[in-house]
């Protein structure tokens, strides 16, 4: 269980990127962080990944306080960040330093198969398309079997077709070990496709505006009515978060009751 308690981050230049974030993510849960640009989503992931230090508050993973990068926490950045001097295979194996060669080989090969890039194992990253590169970077994070996987708008630079296929690849990898996932996105459809819960954020300072459970059965039918209504609920929450920054969010329970009635 990943728990964030009263987390705040103020940058050296005085920017209040996050203010009093409290959030609990259960084991194996996929949480989508949604919000406009500047809400502090990236900041939040960087704090959890240990790449930046929080100004106040605590991050705990299964009771252990996280301070700095942790072996059980993996991150996929917005851009692939592959090492150009390593082949696809070597890039995926980058985090498997202490692992035996045979084990490394098996794990990377399996991951390559999962992301459909087995034939490209020995190519250089620069010879891959953007979508392929991002898949490699997802595989690199997955092969170390992290308990928590952080994804920072990993598909935002890709077109809709590629994105849809990457969603499948991601879920395919997730199914195997079921890590806890925190996914940052500005794409509401993506959130409803992947997540168990959507957390809507609000800027200046970055904070949580509302949380909406997404209890649709998997695999999710993007054309179904429940999907549509979930998308609409999130859009409404986003709308409120922008229009009335001071207004208390209408709690999710009420809305769920309404949904049941409907």
């Amino acid at each position, binding site marked *: 269980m990943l728990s964030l308690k009263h987390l705040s981050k103020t940058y050296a230049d005085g920017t209040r990127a996050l203010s009093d974030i409290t959030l609990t993510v259960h084991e194996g849960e996929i949480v989508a962080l949604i919000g406009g640009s500047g809400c502090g989503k990236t900041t939040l992931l960087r704090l959890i*990944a*240990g*790449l930046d230090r929080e100004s106040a508050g605590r991050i705990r993973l299964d009771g252990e306080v996280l301070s700095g*990068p942790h*072996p059980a926490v*993996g*991150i996929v*950045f917005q*851009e692939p*960040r592959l*090492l*150009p*001097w*390593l082949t696809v295979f070597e890039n995926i194996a*980058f*985090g498997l*330093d202490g692992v035996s060669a045979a084990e490394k080989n098996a794990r990377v090969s399996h991951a390559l198969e999962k992301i*459909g890039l087995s*034939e490209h194992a020995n190519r*250089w990253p*620069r*010879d891959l*398309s*953007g*979508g392929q590169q991002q898949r490699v970077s997802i595989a690199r994070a997955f092969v*170390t079997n992290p308990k928590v996987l952080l994804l920072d708008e990993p598909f935002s630079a*890709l*077109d809709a*077709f*590629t994105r*849809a*296929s990457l969603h*499948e690849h991601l879920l395919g990898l997730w199914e195997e070990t079921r890590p806890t996932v925190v996914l940052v996105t500005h794409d509401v459809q993506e959130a409803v496709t992947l997540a168990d819960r959507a957390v809507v954020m609000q800027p200046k300072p970055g904070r949580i505006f509302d949380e909406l459970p997404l209890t649709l059965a998997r695999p999710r039918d993007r054309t179904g009515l429940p999907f549509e209504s979930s998308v609409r609920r999130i859009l409404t929450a986003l709308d409120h978060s922008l229009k009335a920054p001071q207004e208390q969010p209408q709690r999710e329970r009420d809305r769920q009751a309404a949904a049941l009635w409907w």
Partner: protein
Amino acid sequence: MTSSRESAVSGNAETVAWSSQEGAAALAAPDFAEKRRAFDGRILLGFLLPIAIALLWEAAVYFGLSQGRLIPPPSRILATLEALAKTGELWAHSWMTLWRVLTGFAIGAVAGIVLGTLSGSSRTIRQFLDPTLQALRAIPSIAWVPLFILWLGIFEASKVALIAVGVFFPVYLGIAGAILSLDRKLVEVGHVFRLSRLQLARRILLPAVLPEAVIALRSGLGLGFMFVVAAEFMGASEGLGYLLVDGQQMGKPDQIVAAIIAFALLGKIADSLLVVASMPLVRWQDTVRERL
């Protein structure tokens, strides 16, 4: 281009599209080989102009249009080269020059790499060291010669020192610059996987900096050859630079041109060896270089 390819395929169709693309690539392979051959032919095009000029000049001298005293015809230059090679002088002089360049290069390059690394990786050291080095760089290196001769004598040490100074600056600047421009985002990947400082240097810093380091070493080597001429001009009894001076004093332009050709070949060979030696290290960049 990538995005259009990406958008043309989706879901399961993707793998199919790729395999067919690879099929296409396999079919295209002979075509590529053909292109290469055509390319090789085009390289020969570059030889045309110098060969034509050489032949014209040869003919002009042959038919008495020119005496060829100050500008010797190619045949005489070749004959001089051959004579120098036969007596063993050419090799002795070349070897001497090469030894000076390599010794100076080794000293200058090591100093440049060490100080460049320090200056590139620590802000404090950079602020301490860099202004002085930049000030020294502003001095034309040849201006050091009298001092070096006073300090180190007129023999090898002062020559090697001059060459080392010439090599040092491009290497220092190249290495420090490469480290400074290192992508912070890639370093963060190292942090995420909890690499130690040493591992970070070995697995991320070093490979990232290598291509630029090779370029810096190559320009250092080039300058080394430039400065060896200067060094050998000031009183040497051996070396290709000595052949140049000797040719001038004895009025032997063919010997001068022969020495120039030897210089060019030596420099080119040394540079090529450096490139070949570094090839396995910067293999991943080859694709780009091929395309250029």
